């Protein structure tokens, strides 16, 4: 199963120079993708930027108002509240998913019986539709009738006279827990795949030197795995920041605004207030932040970690 990477010497991704007379060839290859992405992404995005610069209450574009929507947004405590919540969410969920995923991958990489059955099963939470994941945890944690609420929380009086998603102190952490449940398998499987693809040579050498398990992990496994960890971590970071479906199903951003992530706020601005201009401004701001972050990240990671 690993013929490719076994056969390939380590630093093997050289670039073919395009033959001079065929300089257009690579452009021809990327053209369909570029055109499609321009149509399905760039045009809606430019339209979003356009909307963000206009008064567009109820989606009726009326007048050009410059950066008013942005000022409105940046001076709105609720916007910063949502950014703060997203940062807490990402800051707790992603590192835990990361650690659990890595630990799980290391365990999976041991001699496990029936691994081909266990892997798809373990992957199930990630395969479920987020809306179903939301409903599933409602079944588990809903106040007074949820399975876990009733059999665990209520029985042992763990959280007193409240329910998980109704408590401003607990709701966010419950959502983080659900996210961890949903995405740890993804991390685990990706890291496991990475472990499976590592070359054997360094390990043989280490065994000859008599290195112990911990040394092997930190000196060989971790450095070789870093590029993968970085890429997967970045993907998850972007997606976790935009979390929507599960929050929408489980708390709708409440109680109060305790779990109102930027996506939930944007949804509210769009479908409840129909403040399309301001919602568009939010989209553009989030986009710019990510773009700047990814750009820097890309440059650094490309140089330091050889990750892309």
């Amino acid at each position, binding site marked *: 199963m690993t013929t490719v990477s076994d056969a390939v010497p380590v630093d093997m991704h050289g*670039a073919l120079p395009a033959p001079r007379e065929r300089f257009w060839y690579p452009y021809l290859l990327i053209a369909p993708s570029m055109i499609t992405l321009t149509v399905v992404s760039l045009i809606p995005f430019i339209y979003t930027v356009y909307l963000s610069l206009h008064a567009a209450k109820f989606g009726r574009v009326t007048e050009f108002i410059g950066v008013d929507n942005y000022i409105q947004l940046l001076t709105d405590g609720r916007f910063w509240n949502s950014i703060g919540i997203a940062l807490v969410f990402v800051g707790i969920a992603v590192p835990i998913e990361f650690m659990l995923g890595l630990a799980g991958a290391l365990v999976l990489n041991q001699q496990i019986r029936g691994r081909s059955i266990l892997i798809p099963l373990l992957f199930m939470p990630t395969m479920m539709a987020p809306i179903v994941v939301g409903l599933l945890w409602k079944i*588990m944690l809903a106040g007074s009738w949820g399975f876990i609420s009733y059999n665990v929380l209520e029985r042992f009086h763990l959280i007193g006279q409240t329910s998980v998603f109704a408590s401003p102190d607990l709701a966010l952490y419950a959502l983080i827990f659900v996210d961890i449940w949903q995405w740890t398998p993804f991390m685990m499987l990706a890291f496991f795949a990475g472990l499976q693809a590592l070359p054997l040579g360094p390990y043989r050498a280490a065994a000859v030197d008599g290195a112990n398990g911990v040394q092997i992990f930190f000196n060989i496994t971790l450095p070789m795995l870093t590029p993968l960890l970085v890429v997967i971590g970045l993907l998850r970071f*972007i997606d976790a920041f935009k979390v929507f479906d599960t929050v929408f199903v489980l708390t709708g951003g409440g109680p109060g605004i305790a779990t109102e992530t930027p996506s939930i706020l944007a949804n509210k601005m769009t479908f409840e207030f129909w403040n399309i201009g301001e919602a568009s401004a939010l989209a553009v701001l989030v986009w710019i932040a990510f773009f700047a972050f990814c750009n820097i990240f890309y440059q650094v990671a490309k140089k330091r970690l050889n990750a892309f």
Partner: protein
Amino acid sequence: MSDVSNTKGTTGGLIWTGTVVAYAAVVLFPIFWMALMMFMPNDAMFARPTVWTFTPTLAHFEYVIEQGFYWNLVTSFLLCLVSTALVVVIGTPAAYAFARFEMKLKDDLFLFILATRMAPPVCLVIPFYFIFAKVGLLDTFAGLTLAYMTFNLSFYVWVLRSFCRDLPVELEEAAALEGWSRAQIFRRVVFPLLRNGIVATAVLCFIFAWNEFLFAFMLGGETVQTLPVSIPKLITSQGVRWGEMAVVGITALLPVLTAVFILQRHIVRGLTLGAVKG
């Protein structure tokens, strides 16, 4: 080449297996409970105290079939199949080109592809809705196929490109010396080597499209209604039809689970994203 750190005997293996099974049992319990709910009579569903034994009923399945949910299943399946196939056809050459050739502004073009994924989808739905309303793409198969490209094509190109970079360039050079054309090289040399990566990435794209809710809800409608979108119909004024919801939720999981089960070797290989270098 796998199991590199296995220096213990089979007893160690058994302990690890036990650990994983125990972990799976805990983590997967909610899904197991949902699967039970498919057969649970309504009065046993949220009984307090919890009812563990019940006479299984097929009533929820009957309702789901009566209401024509299989039609949503077919719609979802066709839509995801077509949109994923399109992504593969359009995206594969691009991923290969980005990995293999020198181009002016290559980094910028590549970042552009990544950038299309960064805005929260919630914000893009309304621009899409208004544009689609103008050109008549709302509630059409073509419209949703196109919309799904926004998140899947960029993901596909991004991931498959890493994979392309791991291909041995010598084989292609040798083939070029033999006088093969570019197209021949791609078809006979590159494609067979890329198969794992394509399958893995395509399955992930399929899963994303399969589970997507917001675009499907706003841009679809009566004609094109995917399975996730059909779920809220079960929240009725007589309360939520939890049993039926369990049936639909688990049914939605099965095709994906089957695909992952059959294709897991490709997926495990493909998921490395080719990012592992020694």
